[in-house]
């Protein structure tokens, strides 16, 4: 078994009387694309929120590269290399597309106050590198011509791609996508499919995906976790999951 990038065990999340996630176990190996599927309200996004530190799980352990992260705040987990997108796209709407990508590189930049005020050579170099990096990713997701447009004015599919690009400029190890194909047309979905495969191939990023589009999921996933009512129902390769009677029951009913 290759090295585990992220490993969650016994993960639970309780809101008052509601147990949204119950004894969830999940692992992602380096270079894998793993999907989480399940009916609406199954707790997929809650698992995401626990893994990325937006919720403090009420129980369980999360290891990222062997380091316990379940108590860390979200921004610290992000700094370790776990970044995510959101179900309802969260862009910096009033800022330009390019600025969105520059903000994401914040912690890689020269943030010295005086360096910036006096435009020292090192500051200029760091800004230039950031712009180049942004330009590279804009090109990759096909948004170069919109660089100076306000992010909120982009079409929906473009916003989705910008959000992924914004994750990628941070140079993550694990990219978590929350329903990236929601609201996309079939054409855009297949572009997304290619983009995700390419991210793994050319940029070595592992991917955890929540998705309802079964074609996309079956197409690109190495493994799939099926969640129902906050509990893991089944897991395995797309083939195994597709043929699992439990899964068929949960999805199609009797």
């Amino acid at each position: 078994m290759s090295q585990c990038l992220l490993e969650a065990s016994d993960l639970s999340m309780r809101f008052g009387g509601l147990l949204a996630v119950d004894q969830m176990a999940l692992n992602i190996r380096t270079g894998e694309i793993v999907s989480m599927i399940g009916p609406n309200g199954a707790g997929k996004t809650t698992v995401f929120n626990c893994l990325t530190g937006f919720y403090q799980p009420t129980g369980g352990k999360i290891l990222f590269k062997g380091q316990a992260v379940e108590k860390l705040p979200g921004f610290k987990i992000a700094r370790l290399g776990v970044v995510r997108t959101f179900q309802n796209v969260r862009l910096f709407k009033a800022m330009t597309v390019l600025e969105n990508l520059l903000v994401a590189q914040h912690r890689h930049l020269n943030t010295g106050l005086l360096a910036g005020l006096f435009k020292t050579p090192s500051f200029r170099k760091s800004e230039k590198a950031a712009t180049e990096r942004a330009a590279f990713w804009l090109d990759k997701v096909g948004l170069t011509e919109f660089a100076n447009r306000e992010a909120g004015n982009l079409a929906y599919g473009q916003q989705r791609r910008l959000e992924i690009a914004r994750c990628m400029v941070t140079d993550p190890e694990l990219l978590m996508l929350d329903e990236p194909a929601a609201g996309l047309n079939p054409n855009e979905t297949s572009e997304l499919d290619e983009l995700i495969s390419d991210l793994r191939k050319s940029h070595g990023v592992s991917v955890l995906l929540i998705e309802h589009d079964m074609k996309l999921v079956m197409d690109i996933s190495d493994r799939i976790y099926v969640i129902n009512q906050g509990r893991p129902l089944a897991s395995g390769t797309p083939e195994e999951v597709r043929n699992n009677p439990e899964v068929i029951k949960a999805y199609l009913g009797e």
Partner: protein
Amino acid sequence: MGEAGFYFIQQLLNGLTVGSTYALIAIGYTMVYGIIGMINFAHGEIYMIGSYVAFAVLAALALMGIDSVTLMLSAAFIISIIITSTYGFAIERVAYRPLRNSNRLIALISAIGMSIFLQNYVRIAQGSRDIAMPSLITGGWSFGPEDGFNITLSYMQVVIFIITFITMTLLTLFISRSRMGRACRACAEDLGMTRLLGINTNQVISLTFVIGAALAAVAGVLLGLYYGVINPYIGFLAGLKAFTAAVLGGIGSIPGAVLGGLILGVTEAFTAGYFSTEYKDVVAFSLLVLILLFRPTGILGKPEVEKV
């Protein structure tokens, strides 16, 4: 019981008196916050306007030669409540309703603007100087040794307790028993859902402002008579104090507002009694800061879950 004990009880009584009026104002903050999630910054000015109207009514009745205290008080309460309710209604219609769906800060800035506007409107109409009024209800009881410190409980304080109690009971009955009260509670739970169920939420929100303003008017009449002096600036501080009380008790919770008001009033009275009158406002603000830091949900508030 020694002298120190008497002094303590005196401070407690004073604190509860003022605290119960804070509670009345705080309910207005807490109800509005509970339903539309905004801080009605102009609420303190409503209280101030309530005092002014009451003074005008009392002075007018005195000029007419009416000297029955009961009649004067009732007239002051009724007219003051009518006028301030109208203010509450109008403010919501003009300054807040158009902003219902915008950012919280936008609505708050509008509310601050409204507060400044009302304060200066009264200043221009009635002048910025203090307006004083001889006390309507005089006398009281005294307990304690002949030569030592005496506890005094004035009739005015008793009136404040009784009227506050009656008002709170009426409010509780209204909220828990009436149809509109049920609609109010539903809106506080989930405004969008309530609208989908066919309840006119705009009406409910207007009603919330009207009730809040009416309670502020009651506080305005009571505190105006208790202190005997008003000016256009009293609303600012009273508003802040009441907001503190609402947050202290847990914003959105009506029993919380009452509890918060009483605690704040007593804390202030003790600060003034044992430490220094000048610093009593500092204590109130510090209390606000401390609660927000360590228990932003207040004593009886529900925690808010961040929606990611």
